[in-house]
């Protein structure tokens, strides 16, 4: 067998008080896609950051061997020169600059110190057409969709002659079509001999694209196997260290009378006047019911909920009925007063104040009734917050821990706690498990079922189809701002829902 391209031997990394990596060994062959999986906090990012020179030598233990010789990267630049490129989850493109400028940022072709623009654009064009990408190198990056931006990042990595490409959750924000394009390109790169490390929570993709899988848990390597020798259940078992019988517990929700109804919700794109993001959509939810809203990215799911909640920045119209009575919701304050809670997507941007404590985050939305109309009662808040932290099993030293230091799963629980502390009767959940580990997902699923049993009406939006199908009593499907299907739990098969979500099938008018 050939010598591997890259070997990372007995890598150890300690942060104050925590051993993030403990003797991890990892190798990568030429032209191979090797998946790295594990729960959040398992050490994947730390391992990658050591490889990329973010944690420079000698801040870690062990050795990095590239083509047989040990390398010690003292900076990101060093690792880039050695042909290692990392595409992080948060894209690092400059939105105002063009595609070509981004690709060659800091390495612009020059003549006498002045940027040679024609060379810049022609080289960018060549790179993009090599990847069969229909992207204009002169287009500003902000005009591209998130999927295309990702592809530009890959082009940028290739322009640096990367031999090792690390992809950290590359599909988190992509539509299915974009995922296909990405996979096509990754296949081509593999044929060219580029080696790739693929990090993802989506095991289905991991199995599709990678030849070997390494599982990390608590900073240790649990093992590297050929993908063909594994299946999803076994990988999950390795990740969590226990067998997960059934991810979606079978729940019997007893349905009560309808508590919530929205009619004729229409939402205009705030940046493009006249363009409708949501077009006369209506739905209702009964007490104790979980209503799933399925749909691809851009189908108007989040905008629908935002508009009902009074938080959409542009023009909109909606009739909202709570307990059969028409109510007026002009802003989130009105919505909360009517008993609507909204666990928004993107917890770091919309959900949390990262530098504040867990407690202050938890009590923010329900502050007035938890604490006092004007003068706050810190002790009453602490008591309520501690109760909720126990119920949701938030893992933190105390409720006075700063929210930004928590893992994704625990942050998500804090956001959930914030809304439960407003005593809602209807709870909107938008992507409640995005980017959190399997264990925490399971706990959130159990909590959703528990809340439904307690009599809440739940409206669940998720990009992960199994999640919508596994939890919902009823599913409606959105495509380009319109309802294209509605299914009961029994009827909702992945195929049926997907064909409505992609617009191949329409609801009989």
């Amino acid at each position, binding site marked *: 067998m050939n010598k591997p391209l890259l070997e990372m031997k007995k890598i150890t990394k300690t942060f104050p008080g925590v051993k993030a990596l403990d003797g991890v060994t990892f190798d990568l062959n030429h032209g191979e896609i090797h998946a790295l999986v594990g729960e959040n906090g398992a050490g994947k990012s730390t391992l990658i950051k050591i490889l990329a020179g973010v944690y420079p030598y000698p801040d870690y233990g062990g050795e990095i061997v590239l083509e047989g010789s040990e390398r010690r990267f003292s900076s990101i630049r060093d690792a880039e020169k050695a042909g290692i490129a990392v595409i992080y989850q948060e894209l690092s493109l400059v939105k105002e600059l063009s595609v070509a400028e981004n690709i060659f940022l800091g390495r612009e072709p020059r003549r006498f110190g002045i940027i040679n623009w024609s060379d810049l654009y022609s080289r960018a064009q060549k790179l993009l057409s090599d990847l069969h990408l229909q992207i204009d190198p002169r287009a500003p990056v902000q005009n591209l969709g998130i999927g295309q931006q990702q592809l530009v990042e890959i082009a940028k990595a290739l322009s640096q002659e990367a031999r090792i490409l690390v992809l950290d959750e590359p599909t988190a924000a992509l539509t299915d079509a974009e995922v296909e394009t990405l996979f096509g390109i990754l296949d081509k790169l593999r044929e060219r001999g580029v080696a790739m490390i693929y990090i993802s929570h989506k095991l289905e993709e991991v199995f599709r694209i990678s030849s070997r899988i390494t599982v990390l848990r608590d900073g240790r390597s649990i093992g590297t196997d050929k993908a063909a020798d594994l299946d999803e259940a076994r990988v999950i078992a390795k990740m969590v260290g226990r067998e997960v019988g059934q991810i979606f517990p079978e729940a019997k929700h007893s349905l009560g009378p309808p508590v919530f109804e929205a009619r004729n919700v229409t939402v205009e794109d705030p940046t493009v006047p006249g363009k409708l993001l949501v077009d006369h959509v209506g739905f209702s939810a009964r007490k104790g019911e979980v209503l799933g809203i399925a749909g691809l990215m851009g189908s108007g799911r989040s905008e629908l909920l935002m508009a009902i909640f009074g938080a959409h920045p542009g023009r909109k119209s909606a009739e909202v009925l709570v307990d059969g009575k028409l109510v007026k919701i002009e802003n989130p304050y009105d919505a909360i007063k009517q008993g609507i809670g909204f666990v928004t997507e993107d917890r770091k941007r919309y959900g949390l*104040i990262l530098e*504040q404590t867990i407690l202050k985050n938890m009590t923010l939305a329900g*502050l007035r009734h938890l604490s006092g109309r*004007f003068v706050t009662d810190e002790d009453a808040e*602490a*008591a309520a917050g501690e109760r909720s932290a126990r119920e949701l099993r938030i893992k933190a030293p105390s409720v006075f821990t700063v929210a930004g230091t928590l893992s994704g799963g625990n942050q998500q629980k804090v956001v959930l706690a914030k809304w439960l502390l407003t005593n809602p009767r209807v709870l909107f959940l938008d992507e409640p498990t995005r980017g959190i580990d399997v264990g925490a997902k399971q706990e959130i699923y159990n909590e959703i079922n528990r809340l439904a049993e307690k009599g809440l009406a739940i409206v669940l939006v998720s990009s992960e189809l199994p999640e919508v199908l596994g939890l919902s009593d009823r599913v409606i499907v959105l495509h380009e701002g319109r309802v294209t299907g509605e299914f009961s739990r029994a009827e909702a098969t992945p195929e049926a829902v997907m064909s409505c979500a992609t617009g191949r099938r329409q609801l009989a008018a």
Partner: protein
Amino acid sequence: MAETNQTGRFKLRTSALRAYTMLLALIVIWMFFQWATRDQYHPYGIFLGAVNFSKLLQQMAVTGVLAVGMLMVIVCGNIDLSIGAVVGLAGGIAALTQGWGLVPSLASAIVVGLAIGALQGTLVAYFNIPAFIVTLGGLEAWRGVILKLTKGATIPVELPIFRSLGRDFIDPRVGFALAAVAVGGVVWTNIRRQRARQRHGLTPLSAGGLMARIAIPSIVIIGFIFLMNQAGGVPIPVIFLLAVALAGAFLTANTTFGRYLYAIGGNADAARLSGINLRRYILAAFCVMGALAGLASILHTARVGSASPDAGTLMELDAIASCVIGGTSLMGGRGTVFGAVLGALILASLDNGMSLLNVENWAQYVVKGGVLVAAVGFDMYGRRGS
């Protein structure tokens, strides 16, 4: 410090650590000036003597009052560059309206400050013009209005009570009475707090902890009054500063208003989605700032004894510097009233101490600028470590 921050019973929150660091810096500055101001008549130095210390506090009162308002504006993610000009304008109007009597004259200063705060706050919150621009415009415009109203002349303060607000002292016996009330307040709040903790099922403080929480502030209060009474009593502007600082601390730490300001500055999107009316609270912060600028203008005009057209110039920068030295983030969401007042005290101590030592004017500016940058640099360094 790094060790104490990690584990064990000396665990400190970063914000608390920061406050203690600045307190330590203040004590070092005081000790240095005390040591440096020794002479043959004062073998132990004169800096911390009752007379000089009283004067120092009078000097900081105006900046301190402004810093409390500025803190609220900065915490919710804004800035107010106009308050120096507002102090000048409100002070000028108070001086011009002396003919109406004492109360209308003082009230007009506060009303003018409040009205300007409301106008600027409306432009920021409801018309989405950045605070930097609105208040930079205000800085120019209000100075112009002063020139128009006063025709460029300095107006003397004629009313004796007006003047005494900036220069006189409260009777030492009243000082002791206030101290007694304050100590009573400390005891009462601590006992109430302890009962509340028990009622909510939280672990109560130990007897020793409770005693310390009562004894330390009480000793500071009584010691302070004793020191001030040696120099004739607590200066009236200092009483105003203490009242404003207490009210500001309560407002920011113990009310929904304060909590919302921090939320808005920390993450405006999250705050909006949590049902907070951002506009209303940003407007309110500017109104508080404006009213406090009105109060500060009274104290300043009274102390100087006249209202001149350039009164208040650069005071906005002293107020911002006080907040920043006290650990306030200009990005919003972080900072305390205690820190802002501490920052004002540090700046006033530097001013006063360097004047005592006859440090040349140019060097005073350089030192103050250096301290501002160093305080923030130190903060950044500490953050990187944690």
